Structures are given as structure tokens and as C-alpha cells.
């Protein structure tokens, strides 16, 4: 069995400095650094790269934990409705015009995520069942989606509407250190919480009854999952909009290199997610495209949808 963590760390250590060089202005690492290049590096490229790493790490870890919790390789962190609720919060900040005040957008988005987490926790109640919980998450997701559409259709000005739609497409363009300081503590705390859920997720491999017979407290596991997914996904949406498919795809790349236990998947998935988003964002920046730059959220969906289809076909083959 190969050890995925050192390998992924090495790959990240290689990709991060390389990603700083690429963009509309290519920076030649052999030439002396001009003041303009230094400014681009320190204030644009570095925070953007750090943000990509954080975002990918959070989504990868959340995806791995969700698949473990639902015992289903097709699960995605979006299923709990936290991402759409955070997006709804962000949309409301545009809608009310508060978004122009710097801190309002992430604050609104985080409030949306917190609202979804609270609702999920209340619904979880004393029951600890996975099915009811997941259905509740899906209801929250569709409700948030409907409210978002309502807000867009009633948007006060066409300008606000286009702003909302563009933001929803998820991107890391023009982000600064401020967004890094918002996302970093939330993401890291979230990954730590998800790691703590690892033992419970391992027990769930055997089904709910066997897991409880092994001493699992289903309520506690649910709370850890809501908190962990809420922090990572909520923090991610607050700074970058909705970025799909990372949480779905990444655990599949990593799983063959682990012993199959969900607890062993969380940290490698975080690292692989970081790598994927970093490289994808870099490609978005470099790809020549008339009328601006390819949005990260769109790029990952373009990549993710065929992957999902491939996964479904493979699963079907295995079931036959």
C-alpha cells in the first residue's frame, strides 16, 4: 500500500510555487523580480493560490466525510444544503445592496450556512438516523435554491442581477488576503472536526446497527458532520461562491491508495482537493478566452459532470 499523504504534500509543494508564475503576466523565475511582478505575486497570486488550496482542502475533506457518512460513493457535500444556504445568504447581501460594504458578503454567506446547520441540528433531534437527516438536508438545499431564484427574479436592478449570477458561478479572481483570513480558520477548524468524526465513520462501514453496537453515538457523529461540513463548505462559499464536484470527485482519486476506511480518506482527500483546485484555477487563469477568464466553478463542473457519468457507468458495471 502506497502512502498518499507524503506524495500529495510533495505534489502540492511543487505545484504551489509553479502556480504563482502562471497568469496573464508570466513571471520569469530566473529574471530579477521587478516591483510590478513583486506586487502581482504578493497581493494577487499568492492569496489566490492560498485560497485555492484552502477551498480545495475543505471541499475534499467534506466530500470524503459525506461519502463515509452516507456510505455512498455518489454523495457530495452539497447534499446537506449548506452550500446553497450560504449562497442564498450571499445573494441576499447583493439584493439588499449591502454587498458593496466589504465584509457583508462573507458575513451574510456564513449566516446562511449557520442557519442551515442550525436547521439540520434541530431536525436531527434525538433520532440519529441517516436517511431522515439526508432527506432533511436535501429539502433545505431545494428550499435555499428556490429562495435564491426568487431573489434573483425580484432583483432591484439588472446590474444587481448580473452581479449575483456572476458571483454564483464561483471564482477566485481578484481575491485578497482578507478572504484568506476569513477562509483559513474556518476551513482548518472544519477539517479538524471532520477528522474527529473519523472513528464514527469507520464504524458506520458496517451499517448503523453494527456501528451502534461498536459504541458509536449517532447523534454526536451527526453534530460533528454538520459542524465540519458547515465550516469547510460555508467558509468556502463565503469567499469563492459555489464550486461543485470537487467533493464528489476527489475521494475517488484517493480511495484506491488507502485501506478503504473513511477515516483514512479525510486528510489525503483534503490534500488532493487542494491540488485539484490549485491546478484548475491556474488553468483558468492561463486559458486564452475571449471576454475574460474561464470561471473556476464552470471549469470544475465541465470536468466534473463527465466524471460523474463515468462513475455511474462504472458502478452500474460493478452491480451487474
Amino acid at each position, binding site marked *: 500500500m502506497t502512502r498518499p499523504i507524503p506524495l500529495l504534500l510533495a505534489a502540492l509543494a511543487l505545484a504551489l510555487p509553479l502556480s504563482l508564475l502562471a497568469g496573464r503576466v508570466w513571471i520569469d523565475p530566473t529574471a530579477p523580480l521587478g516591483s510590478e511582478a513583486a506586487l502581482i505575486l504578493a497581493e494577487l497570486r499568492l492569496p489566490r493560490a492560498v485560497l485555492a488550496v484552502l477551498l480545495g482542502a475543505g471541499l475534499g475533506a467534506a466530500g470524503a466525510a459525506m461519502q463515509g457518512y452516507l*456510505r*455512498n460513493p455518489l454523495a457530495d457535500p452539497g447534499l446537506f444544503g449548506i452550500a446553497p444556504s450560504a449562497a442564498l445568504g450571499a445573494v441576499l447581501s447583493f439584493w439588499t445592496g449591502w454587498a458593496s460594504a466589504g465584509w457583508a458578503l462573507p458575513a451574510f454567506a456564513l449566516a446562511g450556512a449557520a442557519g442551515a446547520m442550525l436547521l439540520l441540528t434541530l431536525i436531527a433531534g434525538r433520532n440519529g438516523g441517516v436517511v431522515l437527516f439526508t432527506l432533511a438536508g436535501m429539502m433545505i438545499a431545494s428550499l435555499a435554491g428556490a429562495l435564491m431564484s426568487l431573489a434573483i427574479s425580484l432583483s432591484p436592478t439588472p446590474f444587481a442581477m448580473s452581479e449575483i449570477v456572476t458571483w454564483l458561478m464561483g471564482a477566485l479572481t481578484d481575491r485578497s488576503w482578507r478572504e484568506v483570513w476569513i477562509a483559513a480558520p474556518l476551513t482548518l477548524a472544519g477539517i479538524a472536526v471532520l477528522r474527529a468524526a473519523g*472513528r464514527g465513520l*469507520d*464504524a*458506520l*462501514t*458496517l*451499517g448503523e*446497527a*453494527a456501528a*451502534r*453496537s*461498536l*459504541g*458509536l*453515538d449517532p447523534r454526536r457523529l451527526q453534530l460533528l458532520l454538520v459542524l465540519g461540513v458547515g465550516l469547510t463548505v460555508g467558509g468556502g462559499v463565503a469567499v469563492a461562491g459555489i464550486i461543485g464536484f470537487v467533493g464528489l470527485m476527489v475521494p475517488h482519486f484517493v*480511495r484506491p491508495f488507502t*485501506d*478503504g*476506511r*473513511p477515516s483514512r480518506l479525510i486528510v489525503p482527500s483534503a490534500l488532493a482537493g487542494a491540488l485539484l483546485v490549485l491546478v484548475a484555477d491556474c488553468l483558468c487563469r492561463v486559458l486564452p478566452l475571449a471576454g475574460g477568464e474561464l470561471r473556476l466553478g464552470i471549469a470544475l463542473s465541465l470536468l466534473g459532470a463527465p466524471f460523474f457519468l463515468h462513475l455511474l457507468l462504472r458502478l452500474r458495471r460493478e452491480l451487474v
Partner: protein
Amino acid sequence: MLAAESLVLPGRLHGVSLRLRPGEVTAICGPNGAGKSTLLACLAGLTLPQSGAALLDGALLAAMPPEARARAIGYLPQVAEVAWDVSVQTLAGLGRLPWRTGATEDAAAVDAALTALDLLPLAYRPVTQLSGGERARALLARVLAGTPRWLLADEPLASLDLAHQLALLAHLRACAAAGMGVVLVLHDLALAMNHADRVVVLDHGNLVADGPPDLALSEPVLAQVWGVNARWLGEPGQRALAV
């Protein structure tokens, strides 16, 4: 001593009392819907009765810390689910989850469980590549790796052919001989008759017979509970049911 005292769960159990001894193989029998699985889940501390209590050595099961309970009572559910394609060794290792002991101790317990069930040659095989019988043994190894004092299994023989049923029963018998209390929900009355030390018969949530197999599964009980006129043929230990 694992005991049930007047367990009541509306619609499922109506005041079932029972004292189980370690070192014995006890079979719980009864028609569909008699409450067998519910009784087993209560004895495992997984289902809380509305009134009455399950006790382990005199202590309330419901009041025990879940991990302490898990170290004492191993439970094998009816549905043999393994969500991820782990190896046999990793699967057995999941039985160590309640222990929080060091890696060496865990590995030793897993090794012992795999050895006891003749699974060492398959230790690195993914569970998806196991036959039905191997899979049932691997799942039992998961329970044994937790070194419980009680083994509660819900129809562990249901999906196995006759040879594998007998092999698994021999393993369970060996567990009881080593001092473990073994409690099985069994549908096959001949297997219960020939292989259990004691049989508990449930019907509509009531305990209707409890004792040595010859008495608990006597022909009048079969007629009363299952509604079949059947006769036991053959010698003790090799009985067959003629319907």
C-alpha cells in the same frame, strides 16, 4: 450473566424475562414477527425497552457507557453490510474500535480472530472478492477481534449453504467452549435442536418455552407456536424434522 427483566416494547415484546449464562449456546427461535430480533437488540443494548430492563452482570445496560458496553457485548446484525471495499484484515480491525488500545494489541487481537476462523490466508483479500461463507466468517472475525464476553448474532446462518452453516456453528461452539456467552437468532429448527445448549421460543412477543432443545422445541410446542404437525426423527444431536 446477561439478563432481560420483563422487557416490554408495545407491539413487539410483552414482558419477556430471561437469564443467559456464559459458556452456553442459546438459540432464540420463533415464527416471523415473534420479536426475536427485537429481543436480541434489547439484549445488545441497541434498543431501549419501554419498560423492563436488560442487565449485564447486574448493571443496567442502558446506563453503561456505549464503548464499555461494546467491549463486553459483540453484536452481529442480520444485514451483512460492508460499505467500502476493505480487506478482511481491515474489516476485522473495525472490531477494535471500542478499545482504543495500542496498534500492537489491536493487531494481536485481529490476528487471533483471523486464526480462529481460518482466515489468515485471506487477510489481504478485499471483502468484495469473498464467497458468501468467507464473508460470513470475516464478519464474525470482526466481532471476535473485539474480544467480547458475549456474542449476539441475528440469523448468522441465513445466507449460508449447509456445509458453511455447520462450519460456522462449529466456530461458535468453540467460542462458547472458551467461556463466551453465545446467543443466536435461528430460523432453522433442526440446527437449533442439534447445536444449541438451550432454546428460547418466542411467539407474538411472549416467551412460550425456555430450556434444553428437546423440551423447548417439543412436538406440542411446534404445533402450538408454528402451527405445524411435525415429528422429530433420529437420535439426540442428529435430529431431523419430519413434517
